[in-house]
C-alpha cells in the first residue's frame, strides 16, 4: 500500500537503507502502517475468496470449483477476515493512534510492539502458504472436533490452521500486554481515565478481552495439536475424548473474540460522530460503562453458540437470558450515538457517511442477534444462511463500515493527504448497496432452509434467485473496494496536502503536523478536560488553531531500532514449521531438530534484546 508516502526517518543516527529502516523500526506509527498494509492485502485475499464462494453459489448445481476447494475457501475466508483482516486493521489504528490520542511519544514497549507485528505477518503468511501446497485449511474457521481430527482431516490442512492461529495468538497477547500498559500508564499529564477519548477506552476494554480470551484458544489449540501431532485423544470419541470440550473452549474464547472485533469499531464511530456533528459525545460515562458491561457479559454467554448441541434446558435458559442482557448496554450505546448527532451541525463528509452506515447496519445485525438468543428459535436458525446474514451485518455492516470510516477520518493524519470526497462517497454508496444486496437476501434463503458451508444446492427449492441476488451484491461490494483503491492511488499521486486539523478535530492527534513527526509531540501535552483539543481551541477563543510548525527534535528520547523483534518472530515461525512437518512426514528424520533450532533462534534473540540499550537521543551530538 501507500507506505512510501511517509518520508524516511531523519532522526536516526547512522544512515540505513529504507528497507532496513522498516525492518528494524520500533516507531508505533510505522508499525501501524505495516499492520495496515499487510492486513489490507490479507483483506483483499479474503475478499477474493468470498467472491469465488459467491460465484460458486450463483446458480443451483454449479461446479465452478471443486467441493474440496470450496471447503478451503470458506474456511480461509472466515479465518482470514477475523484474524488477518479485521483484528490487524483495528491494530493499525491502535498502533498509530493510541499514543497520539493519549499524548504519548510511543507505546510502553516499542520493541515488543514490533515483535507483535512481525509475528502477525509471518503467521498470516504461514497460513496462506498452505494454498501453494493445495492444502489450505478446510474444517471451518472454528475447527470443530472431530472434523479437525487427524482421522477426518488427514492432510496438513488443519495443521496449518492450528499452528497458524497459535502464532497469531502470540502476536495478539503480546500486543494486549503492551496496549493495556500503554493506556493505563502513558497518558499525558491531566488525562484521567474519564477524560480519555472513547476510542482509547474501546482499545483498553478490547485488550482486557484479548488478555483473558486468547489464553483459552491457546490451550484449545495445544490440545488439538496434542491430538493431531502427538497422538493424544482429547477430542476423540473412540478413546473417551469429548468433542464438546473443544466447542466449549473454542467459544469461551470465541464469544469475547467477536467483541474484540466490534468494540474498536464502537470506539472509532464514537470519535467520528462528535467531530462531524460539532457536539461532544452524548453520555460519555454511560458509553464507558456500557462498553465495560458488554465486555464483562461477553465472558458469560459463550454457550449460545452451542444451543444445538443439547446442553439441556437449564444451561440453555441461563445462556439465553445472559445473551439477551447484552441488548441493554448495546442499546444504550446506539441511543447515545443517535443522541450525539441529534441537533448537531452535521458536516456531511465521507467519514460521517460510513459512521451513519455503521449505526444502521449494526442495528439490523443486533436485531437478528437477539433472535438467536432465543434458544428454540435458534435451533431453527442455527447453521443456516440466516446466521451468515446475522454475523455479516455485525462484522461487515458493523466492523468494516466503522474501519472504513476510520480510514477516511484518519488518512490525512497518517499520510498527509486527504482522500478524495467524491470517490469516498461513491465507495460508500456502492458498499452500502452491495452489502445489503448480498446479505439481506440471506435472511430469507436461511429461513427457507439453506444450510451454511454447503457446496451447492439443487434447483427447484426457490433458492436460486436469492443466491443470484447475493452474488450480484457481492460483485458490487467487491467493486466498491476497487474504487477505494483507486482513491488511494490518485490521492497518493495528486491529493491535496492535509493540514494538521482538516476536520476540526476534538482530540490531540490533530494538534500536531500531518503526518506526525517521529517523536509525535515536540512538547508533551497537558490535558484539563475531555475533548482536549476542543478545550484548547475554546481557551484560545478560536475555531481553528494555527498550523503547528515542523520542528527539529533534538534531545528527545526515542526507542532505538532493533533487529531482535523480527528475529524472535522468525524463531517462532521456524519452531512451528518444525511441528508442522513432524505430523505428516513420519519420523524418519528428527524434525524436532527444526523446532529446537527455532526455539534457539527465538531464545537467543530475546536474550540479545534484553541486553540491548532501549533508547537513544535524536540529537546528533551528545549521546
Amino acid at each position, binding site marked *: 500500500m501507500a507506505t512510501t508516502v511517509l518520508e524516511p526517518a531523519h532522526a536516526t543516527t547512522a544512515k540505513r537503507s529504507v528497507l532496513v529502516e522498516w525492518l528494524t523500526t520500533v516507531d508505533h506509527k510505522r508499525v501501524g502502517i505495516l499492520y495496515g498494509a499487510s492486513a489490507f492485502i490479507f483483506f483483499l485475499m479474503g475478499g477474493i475468496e468470498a467472491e469465488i464462494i459467491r460465484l460458486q453459489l450463483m446458480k443451483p448445481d454449479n461446479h465452478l470449483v471443486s467441493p474440496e476447494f470450496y471447503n478451503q475457501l470458506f474456511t480461509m475466508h472466515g479465518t482470514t477476515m477475523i484474524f488477518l483482516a479485521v483484528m490487524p486493521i483495528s491494530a493499525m489504528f491502535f498502533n498509530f493512534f493510541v499514543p497520539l490520542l493519549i499524548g504519548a511519544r510511543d507505546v510502553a514497549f516499542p520493541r515488543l510492539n514490533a515483535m507483535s507485528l512481525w509475528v502477525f505477518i509471518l503467521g498470516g503468511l504461514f497460513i496462506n502458504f498452505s494454498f501453494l501446497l493445495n492444502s489450505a485449511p478446510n474444517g471451518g474457521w472454528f475447527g470443530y472436533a472431530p472434523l479437525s481430527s487427524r482421522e477426518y482431516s488427514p492432510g496438513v490442512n488443519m495443521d496449518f490452521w492450528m499452528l497458524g492461529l497459535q502464532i497469531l495468538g502470540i502476536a495478539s497477547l503480546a500486543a494486549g500486554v503492551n496496549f493495556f500498559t500503554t493506556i493505563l500508564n502513558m497518558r499525558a499529564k491531566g488525562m484521567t481515565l474519564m477524560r480519555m477519548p472513547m476510542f482509547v477506552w474501546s482499545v483498553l476494554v478490547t485488550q482486557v478481552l484479548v488478555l483473558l480470551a486468547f489464553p483459552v484458544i491457546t490451550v484449545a489449540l495445544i490440545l488439538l495439536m496434542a491430538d493431531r501431532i502427538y497422538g493424544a485423544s482429547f477430542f476423540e*470419541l473412540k478413546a473417551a475424548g469429548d468433542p*464438546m470440550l473443544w466447542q466449549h473452549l473454542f467459544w469461551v474464547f470465541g464469544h469475547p473474540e467477536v467483541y474484540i472485533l466490534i468494540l474498536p469499531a464502537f470506539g472509532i464511530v464514537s470519535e467520528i460522530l462528535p467531530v462531524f456533528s460539532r457536539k461532544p459525545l452524548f453520555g460519555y460515562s454511560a458509553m464507558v460503562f456500557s462498553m465495560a458491561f458488554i465486555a464483562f457479559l461477553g465472558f458469560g454467554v459463550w454457550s449460545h453458540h452451542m444451543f444445538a448441541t443439547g446442553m439441556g434446558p437449564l444451561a440453555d435458559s441461563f445462556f439465553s437470558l445472559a445473551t439477551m442482557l447484552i441488548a441493554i448496554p448495546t442499546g444504550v450505546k446506539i441511543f447515545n450515538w443517535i443522541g450525539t448527532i441529534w441537533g448537531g451541525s452535521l458536516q456531511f463528509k465521507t467519514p460521517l457517511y460510513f459512521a451513519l452506515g455503521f449505526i444502521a447496519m449494526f442495528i439490523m445485525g443486533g436485531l437478528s442477534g437477539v433472535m438467536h438468543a432465543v434458544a428454540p428459535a435458534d435451533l431453527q436458525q442455527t447453521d443456516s444462511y440466516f446466521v451468515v446474514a446475522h454475523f455479516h451485518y455485525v462484522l461487515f455492516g458493523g466492523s468494516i463500515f466503522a474501519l472504513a470510516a476510520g480510514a477516511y477520518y484518519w488518512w490525512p493524519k497518517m499520510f498527509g493527504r486527504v482522500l478524495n470526497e467524491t470517490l469516498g462517497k461513491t465507495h460508500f454508496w456502492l458498499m452500502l448497496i452491495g452489502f445489503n444486496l448480498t446479505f439481506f437476501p440471506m435472511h430469507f434463503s436461511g429461513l427457507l432452509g439453506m444450510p451454511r458451508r454447503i457446496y451447492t444446492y439443487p434447483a427447484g427449492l426457490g433458492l436460486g434467485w436469492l443466491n443470484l441476488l447475493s452474488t450480484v451484491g457481492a460483485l458490487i461490494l467487491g467493486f466498491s473496494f476497487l474504487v477505494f483503491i483507486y482513491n488511494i492511488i490518485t490521492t497518493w499521486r495528486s491529493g491535496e496536502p492535509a493540514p494538521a486539523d482538516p476536520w476540526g478535530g476534538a482530540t490531540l492527534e490533530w494538534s500536531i503536523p500531518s503526518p506526525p513527526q517521529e517523536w509525535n509531540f515536540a512538547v508533551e501535552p497537558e490535558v484539563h478536560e475531555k475533548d482536549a483539543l476542543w478545550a484548547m481551541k475554546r481557551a484560545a477563543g478560536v475555531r481553528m488553531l494555527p498550523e503547528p510548525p515542523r520542528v527539529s527534535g533534538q534531545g528527545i528520547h526515542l526507542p532505538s531500532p532493533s533487529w531482535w523483534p523480527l528475529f524472535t518472530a522468525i524463531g517462532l515461525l521456524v519452531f512451528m514449521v518444525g511441528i508442522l512437518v513432524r505430523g505428516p512426514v513420519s519420523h524418519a528424520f528428527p524434525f524436532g531438530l527444526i523446532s529446537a533450532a527455532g526455539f534457539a533462534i527465538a531464545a537467543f534473540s530475546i536474550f540479545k534484546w534484553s541486553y540491548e540499550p532501549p533508547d537513544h537521543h535524536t540529537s546528533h551530538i551528545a549521546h
Partner: protein
Amino acid sequence: MSDTVAVVHDSHDIPHATGSKYVQIACILFVLTALEVLLYEVCFGHLSGSSFSASLAPHFVSVLLILSAMKFWFVAMFYMHLKFDIKILSWLFGFSLMIASVVILALFVLFTYNRTLWWWNGAWH
C-alpha cells in the same frame, strides 16, 4: 535475615514487608502444606481407617481447597506484595482470577450436568 528495616522500592516509596515477616510467611506456608498432606493421609492414606477419618473424608475437598486458598493468599499478598502495592494491581489479578474461577466452575457444572443426561450414559459411552 531478620532485619526489621522497612525498605522502599521503585521510586514511589511504598513500604515493603520486612525480612522477618518473610520468614513468618514461609513458616505458615510450610505448616499449611503439611496440613494438606496430613489431611490426605488421615482421610485416605496411611493414617486412614479410624472413625475420625470417616467423618473427615466427606469434607476432604472443601478443606483442601480452603487450605490452598490460604496459601495462595499469603503468597500473593506478601511475597508478591499486593498488600503494599497500588490497588490496581490487586484489581487486575483479582478480576482475572474471578473470570478464571467462574469459567472453571461453569465448565465443570456443564460437563457434570451433561454426563448425567441419558445420551451420555446410553448411546455415547
